[in-house]
């Protein structure tokens, strides 16, 4: 705050230049992008540094090798729409041919996707789609299975665990997570109609849903909140890999009797399934999801696939066709229990 700053100036500028020079060296030595002859494809997860998306990218990279495309895995560190938009801008600017993206926000990225589309980039959403009203912003969405199937399957798993009776709660991701909201909406009526001896702890599924924001700390706190608010809860469905893991860990720690199931990565859930904390969880194969999405994007770029309802594309040996809403489904989720967890945990 004191001193004679005018004389300091020269030193400061010198120092600034030194810093900048360092930066310059770093920039110049940055890896230049390989310029292969094939397509340039951007693979964008909701956020990098997440195990699920690492597996997703593994499948995408396999497909890229097969079709001799250059694939770059890029995305923000935090799963928000605005953060993804910065990277979509990068994709437009670097003139990628195809963008495969898992939408971190079903609305906020839509204007940017439209810009990318206008720039001639073929967009495939995979894993998480944009809002139905914005379906025209992408060619196709490659999703695991219809929302209804995923939601009802989870209800069946928890019914199997609780013996078809008792009160059930849901431990979800963020309140704004579009995937989870769609699955939960499907769970609501299915549980009450299919299992007469089961009910939602809060009366309706909406009032029985708790949000852990896909964060281990918050999910754990919400698991505790469910138990303290509803001591008679018989089962908790957590339709998110972060939530079901936190629930399993907290159930084990507290030796709680509540049953837990949901969507979990086998590699992460293996310890809890092996020791009996959790009987069964399910999930599609994220590797396949990434793999198929790359093929869809490449076919769209080649002009052999339009994304119209009824049109189809090939990924590896299988063919996938587009159903209403511009969506191609992978198939029902796999389930993991003691019998097969050893095999699956080595895969993803």
């Amino acid at each position, binding site marked *: 705050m004191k001193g004679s700053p005018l004389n300091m100036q020269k030193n400061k500028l010198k120092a600034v230049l030194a810093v900048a020079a360092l930066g310059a060296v770093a920039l110049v030595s940055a890896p230049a992008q390989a310029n292969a002859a094939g397509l340039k494809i951007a693979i964008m997860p909701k956020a990098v540094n997440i195990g699920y998306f690492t597996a997703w990218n593994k499948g995408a990279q396999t497909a890229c090798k097969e079709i001799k495309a250059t694939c770059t895995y890029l995305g923000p*560190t935090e799963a928000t729409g605005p953060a993804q938009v910065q990277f979509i801008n990068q994709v437009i600017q670097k003139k990628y041919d195809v963008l495969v993206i898992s939408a971190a926000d079903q609305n906020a990225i839509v204007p940017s996707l439209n810009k990318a589309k206008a720039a001639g980039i073929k967009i495939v959403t995979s894993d998480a789609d944009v809002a139905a009203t914005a379906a025209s912003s992408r060619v196709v969405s490659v999703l695991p299975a219809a929302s209804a199937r995923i939601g009802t399957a989870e209800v069946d798993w928890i019914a199997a665990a609780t013996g078809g009776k008792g009160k059930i709660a849901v431990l979800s991701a963020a309140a704004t997570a579009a995937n989870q909201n769609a699955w939960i909406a499907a769970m609501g009526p299915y549980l009450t109609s299919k299992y007469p001896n089961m009910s939602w702890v809060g009366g309706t599924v909406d009032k029985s849903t708790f949000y852990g924001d896909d964060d281990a700390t918050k999910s754990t706190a919400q698991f*505790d909140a469910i138990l303290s608010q509803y001591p008679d809860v018989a089962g908790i469905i957590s339709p998110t890999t972060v939530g079901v893991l936190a629930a399993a860990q907290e159930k*084990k720690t507290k030796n709680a009797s509540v049953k837990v199931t949901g969507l979990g990565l086998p590699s992460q859930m293996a310890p809890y399934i092996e020791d009996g904390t959790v009987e069964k969880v399910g999930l599609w194969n994220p590797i396949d999801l990434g793999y198929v999405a790359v093929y869809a994007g490449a076919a769209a770029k080649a002009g052999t696939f339009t994304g119209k309802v009824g049109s189809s594309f090939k990924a590896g040996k299988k063919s996938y066709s587009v159903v209403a809403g511009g969506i191609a489904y992978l198939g029902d989720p796999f389930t993991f229990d003691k019998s097969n967890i050893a095999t699956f945990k080595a895969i993803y």
Partner: protein
Amino acid sequence: MRNLLRIRELPIAVVLVAFFSIAALGNHQLFSFSGLHDLLFGSSIICLLVSAETLIIVMKHIDLSIGSTIGFASYIIGKNASNGHGLLYCLLLGIIFGLAVGAVNGLLVAYFKLPSLVVTLGTLYLVRGLFNQVAGGDFINSDKVPHVLSFMASHTFAKIPYLFIVAFVLALIVGFYMRNFRSGRDLYAIGSNLPAAYLAGIKVEKRTFWAFTAAGGIAGLGGALLIARFGQAQANSGLGIELGVVAACVVGGVAIAGGIGTVFGAIIGALLLQTIVLALGALGVSQFWQGVVNGALLIAAISLDKVLSSRSQRTQIMRVSE
């Protein structure tokens, strides 16, 4: 001094007991050993970190980097454990890492005289970025967590969770040090009146440096608790925890203006915040409203503290400001 400190913690302790009781009337589940267990277990990580943050805030500084440090430390501990190293080795690595981050903060704040908020905001980004770069999508699973740690997470001693005992013992040590050691009391002097602290011959730089280093070390140790508590470590472990820690300190009477507050007050603050969370849930307040009530209660707690401790006001007005 002693009396003053006691008085400062009294109101917040009364609020804690009152709030807990009222909530317990509404939900009997809360007023049981399992309710108490939830409270202590759920707040153990924050309770450990307030010891670190109190050291810093009484000096009128702040450390925002502890969230990144505790996260990276938990990953270091988990990664080395999964590579087959023993618990002590892993623990030591985690603590050394924390000490190193703390020492960088301390060096820049104490000897280079840089503002701690900027420095620790910088190290918050820096350490998190390095952590992300190192960890990537890697995931440390619960079966890789050292057995002693997972045992501590799932067991209690005399109904008190081990993790809370660790945090509490550390708070006892830090609290005892700050109250009874010359160098500990120096931290209060530095925070309440820096020029006077210099004139009184206090080694300000040395104290500041070691306080930051110790805070880093505590966050490093916290990494062990974090991985024990959640049975996992990954790139976003510990993300954003620092603001909760600062809030607990402030609610517990550790004034941001420096020079006042104790570790025990901060722990009471952490317990109060956790009670609020548990009580709102137990009373059936919708999760969307919980955030609102939580924020409002935090403001109310700060206001209450302000009203009750108008005593400290006088020293602030009289202080020669820069």
